[in-house]
C-alpha cells in the first residue's frame, strides 16, 4: 500500500495529512463497484466529537467527487488528518492538505480542489484566509472548495448569516484566489520531484 503525507500550513494553521491506499477493504466496508473512501480528522486536543464527524463528512464527499473510485473497486482509501495547530481557516487548510495528499499518492483524480475561507467583516469587506481573531470578529465565515477544472464549487459551508449578494461576492473572490493556491500546488510538486 502506498503511504504519503502532506503538511499544509497557511500562516500558523497546520494540518498533517496521511493517505493510505488503495488497500484491501474490510468486507463490511467494501463497495462492489468503487473504492470506499474514509476520512479521519483528529483534533489537536481532546477526542473527536460531533464537529469532527461533520467535517469528516464534508471532506469525504469532496474527495469522493474527484477521486476516480471506479478504477479501484473493492478497495479502501483512508485519509487521516491530524490538526497540529489552529490559528484560523482550519477547514480550508484540511481541504488543501487532503488534496495534496491525494496528489502525492498519485491517485487518479478528475480535478484538483483547494479550500478557501472568506470572512465577512462587520463593515462589509471580504477577507480571505482569516486568522482566528478575524474569524471571531467576522459577521459570517464562508468556506468553499473550488475545483481546478472550471472553478466550480465542490463544497460550501457557512457560519453566521449573510445576504445572497455577499455570498456571491465571496464566491467570486474565492474562485479568483483559487488560482494562487493551484499555482502553489504546482510549485510544491515541482520542487518535490526536481530533487530526485
Amino acid at each position, binding site marked *: 500500500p502506498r503511504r504519503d503525507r502532506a503538511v499544509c500550513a497557511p500562516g500558523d494553521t497546520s494540518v498533517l495529512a496521511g493517505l493510505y491506499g488503495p488497500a484491501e477493504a474490510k468486507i463490511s466496508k467494501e463497495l462492489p463497484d468503487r473504492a470506499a473512501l474514509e476520512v479521519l480528522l483528529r483534533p489537536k486536543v481532546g477526542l473527536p466529537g*460531533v*464537529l469532527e*464527524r*461533520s467535517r*469528516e*463528512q*464534508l*471532506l*469525504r*464527499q*469532496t*474527495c*469522493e*467527487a474527484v477521486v476516480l473510485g471506479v478504477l479501484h473497486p473493492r478497495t479502501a482509501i483512508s485519509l487521516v488528518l491530524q490538526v497540529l495547530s489552529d490559528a484560523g481557516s482550519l477547514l480550508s487548510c484540511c481541504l488543501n492538505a487532503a488534496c495534496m495528499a491525494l496528489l502525492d499518492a498519485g491517485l487518479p483524480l478528475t*480535478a484538483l480542489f483547494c479550500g478557501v475561507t472568506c470572512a465577512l467583516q462587520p463593515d462589509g469587506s471580504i477577507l480571505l484566509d482569516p486568522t482566528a481573531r478575524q474569524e471571531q470578529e467576522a459577521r*459570517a465565515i*464562508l468556506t468553499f*472548495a473550488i*475545483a481546478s*477544472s*472550471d472553478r*466550480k*464549487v*465542490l*463544497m*460550501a*459551508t*457557512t*457560519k*453566521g*448569516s*449573510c*445576504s*445572497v449578494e455577499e*455570498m*456571491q461576492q465571496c*464566491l*467570486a473572490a474565492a*474562485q479568483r484566489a483559487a488560482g494562487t493556491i493551484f499555482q502553489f500546488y504546482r510549485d510544491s510538486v515541482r520542487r518535490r520531484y526536481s530533487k530526485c
Partner: protein
Amino acid sequence: LSICSRTVEPLEYYRRFLKENCRPDGRELGEFRTTTVNIGKCSITTADGSALVKLGNTTVICGVKAELAAPAVDSANKGYIVPNVELPSLCAERFRSGPPGEEAQAASQFIADVIENSQMIVKEDLCIASGKLAWVLYCDIICLDYDGNLLDASVFALLAALKNVQLPLVTINEETGLSEVNLKQKNPLIIRKHPVATSFAIFDDTLLIVDPTAEEEDLATGTVTIVTDEEGRLCSVHKPGGSPLTGAKLQDCITRAITRHKEVKKLIDKVIKSITPK
C-alpha cells in the same frame, strides 16, 4: 423498446423521467412533497414543546425539554441549546442500533449550526440570573420514517417545537438564594428568526431536483441544502462535496429556497393560529 426495471437499473429508470422534467412519483423537479405539521399537545404531552412534521413519507418528531443549570463560567449570561438528531434503526434499514452513525452526528452538527447562524434563539434570552441560573433547552429530533430530505424536516420540526415551548417563570428568592418555579405563569420562547431549510439533489452533474426521496438521494451525485430566514438572508449554504456547481446554479437553488420559505412560514403560522386558545 428496452425494458427498464426500477430495481435492476434505477438510474436509467430515473433518467427517463427526468428527460420529461418530472419524477416517478408525479412531482415536477421543483415541487415539494405534501408537508404536514402537528404542533403541541397532539405530539408529546410530557415535553415542554413538541412537533411532528411529515414531508411526504419522511416523518420527524421534535421534543424540547427545558431544564435549569448554572451558566458556563466564560459566558455567565448565556443559556444553552442542545440539539440532538437521532436516526433509530426503526426509521430505515440502513441504520443499525448502537452509537450514532456519521449521518446522525453530521445532522446534529448541522442543526446546531443553523440555530447558531440564524440566531433564532439568542442565548442571552435563556439566562435567568447572570452567573447563577439559566435555561438549558434539550431539543431531541427523532426520525420515525426516513424517506429522504432529513435536514429540511428536522429544521422545520425544531422550529415548530420551539414555537410551542412555554417556559414557566423562574425567580431567585433573595433570602434563601434558591430558585422558585412558578408553573402557573408560562411565557412562550422569544424566537427572533424563522429559518427554513430547502434541500436539493444533483443528478448527473447538471440537474437539480428539490426535496429528494431516499431513492433519489441514493442515485444523486451530490446534495445542497440552503437555509434562509424571513429577510431573505442566508443562514447556511451546506454543500457537502458531490458534483461541482457553478455560482449561477447555486443562485437558482437560493431563489427556490426563498420561495419555499414563504410557503413554510404560511403553513406554520396557520397551524399556530389554529391551536392557540382564543
